[in-house]
């Protein structure tokens, strides 16, 4: 029985990793084929580093991820604080439901709905929709789909806050505002940071919604990769770029994990 379950586990993990392994293999292919390996070469990677369009898409991806996650974290954290204090139960659950719509909705519907919003604004102002698409449209979209994740990771930390600490700070002469910054904000910081990291990665990773709003000029890395892939054909340079992107995401994950561990350890020290 144990043997069978071991073999089964290995098989599933092979299924999960084999395509990625084959992708990495063919990104080093000397020939321009993704089905027959003709020898090892770094040509595709060399080509990528000289490609201005790739760098532009990379820059776009990073700028968008950083801006959208910072803004979503600010708006979302404020919202989580406000929602926790909201007296009207119906309003609160209403806001929460609406916020979660982009999380529940299939990406394609969120993309379509935002595209229609810009199309409508374009008709009102009498311009083509393409002029409204691109950076700003995508930024708005990314903030929108990042918000529920930020709120979901901050809200539980607010619920865990010790009210007595805030009151002690007030008694000891803090103004309400400084009590917030000195006592409450540090308490919810882990939630804010994990919300920020979540938003950042989701923004880098998004394809469907970005694709619908990118217009004809603008592209992020996933949209750029999509544009390079034809119907059922893929070239080694796409695999090379994809491999680099995977490594980048992996590095990001390791960094955020290490950071989170350190923060947790710090907190444990403080409370102990």
């Amino acid at each position, binding site marked *: 029985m144990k043997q069978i379950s071991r073999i*089964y586990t290995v098989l599933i993990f092979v299924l999960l990793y084999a395509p*990625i392994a084959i992708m990495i293999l063919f990104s080093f292919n000397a020939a321009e084929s993704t089905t027959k390996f003709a020898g090892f070469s770094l040509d595709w990677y060399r080509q990528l580093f000289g490609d201005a369009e790739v760098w532009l898409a990379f820059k776009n991806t990073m700028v968008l991820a950083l801006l959208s996650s910072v803004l979503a974290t600010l708006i979302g954290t404020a919202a989580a604080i406000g929602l926790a204090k909201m007296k009207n139960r119906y309003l609160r659950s209403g806001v929460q439901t609406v916020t979660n719509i982009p999380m529940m909705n299939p990406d394609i519907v969120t993309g379509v709905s*935002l595209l229609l919003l810009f*199309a409508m604004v374009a008709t009102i102002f009498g311009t083509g929709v393409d002029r409204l698409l691109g950076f700003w449209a995508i930024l708005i979209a990314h903030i929108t789909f990042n918000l529920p994740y930020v709120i979901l990771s901050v809200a539980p930390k607010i619920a865990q806050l010790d009210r007595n600490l805030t009151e002690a700070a007030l008694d000891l002469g803090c103004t309400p505002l400084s009590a*917030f910054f000195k006592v409450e904000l540090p308490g919810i910081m882990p939630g804010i940071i994990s919300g920020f990291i979540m938003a950042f990665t989701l923004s880098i990773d998004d394809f469907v919604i970005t694709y619908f709003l990118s217009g004809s000029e603008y592209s992020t890395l996933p949209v750029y990769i999509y544009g390079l892939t034809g119907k059922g054909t893929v070239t080694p340079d796409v695999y090379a770029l*994809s491999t680099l992107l995977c490594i980048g995401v*992996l590095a990001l994950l390791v960094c955020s994990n290490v950071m989170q561990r350190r923060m947790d350890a710090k907190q444990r020290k403080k409370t102990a």
Partner: protein
Amino acid sequence: MNKKRSFLQSISAAPHMVWAVLFIVTPMLFVLYYAFTKEGGGFSFENFTNLFQAIYVSTFVRSLCYALIATVICLLLAYPLAYILAKLGEGRQSLMITLLMLPMWINFIIRTNSLISIVHILGFFGTPVSVILGMVYNYLPYMILPIYTVLSKIDRRYLEASMDLGCTPLQTILKVVLPLSISGVISGITMVFVPSVSTFYISTALGGNKTTLIGDMIESRFLGSSGAINYYMGAMLSLILMILIFISMWVMNRFSDEKDGGVIV
């Protein structure tokens, strides 16, 4: 003294609420508006009646079938693995879960592209099998994780009690483990079914001409060749897709609620 503070706190949700109205509620209303407007303007049910054309009906049916098959395959593959993982020692468990989550962080386009080589090498490129493989490969971890989470929280004593009371291991799995894990199964099904039924790249990359899915159709109504573009029909298709998904999620949630209640009683 606390007045200023509570005022600040009560308006701190305001930017978000404005944002949600502008960029979540309004766009949804526009989907509704476009869906019931005919090309050139004016309220109409034309797009709705157009839905019953053979091309749309067959595409919807195909999407549902592929997504259902992919979900069932994922469930069958995932459940045993989740069960095996939940029984591992703690250290190995967290290693395996990390390994399981890593591919989830790889971009969807990249994961789908990485299958192109394999499908070509194995020789079933362009068939429904290759599209369904694409769905299973992309979404399998989303089935494994929730089931694993539920299974790892099951109290061992239930299993011991069941064995003591004379159940065989198989009976224990069927009568104790399975009912207790139903909420994980339900959320796994939702997490695989929803993206599978609404996907639009998988069939373009891996399928042939006869595997167009509803997502591809919506995409081509908005961003396709100029002949295919029709925002109004695209909005109607999106609306129907959204309703379809909300209905299935609602049914699933009810199903899992009842089961959970039953277990507690």
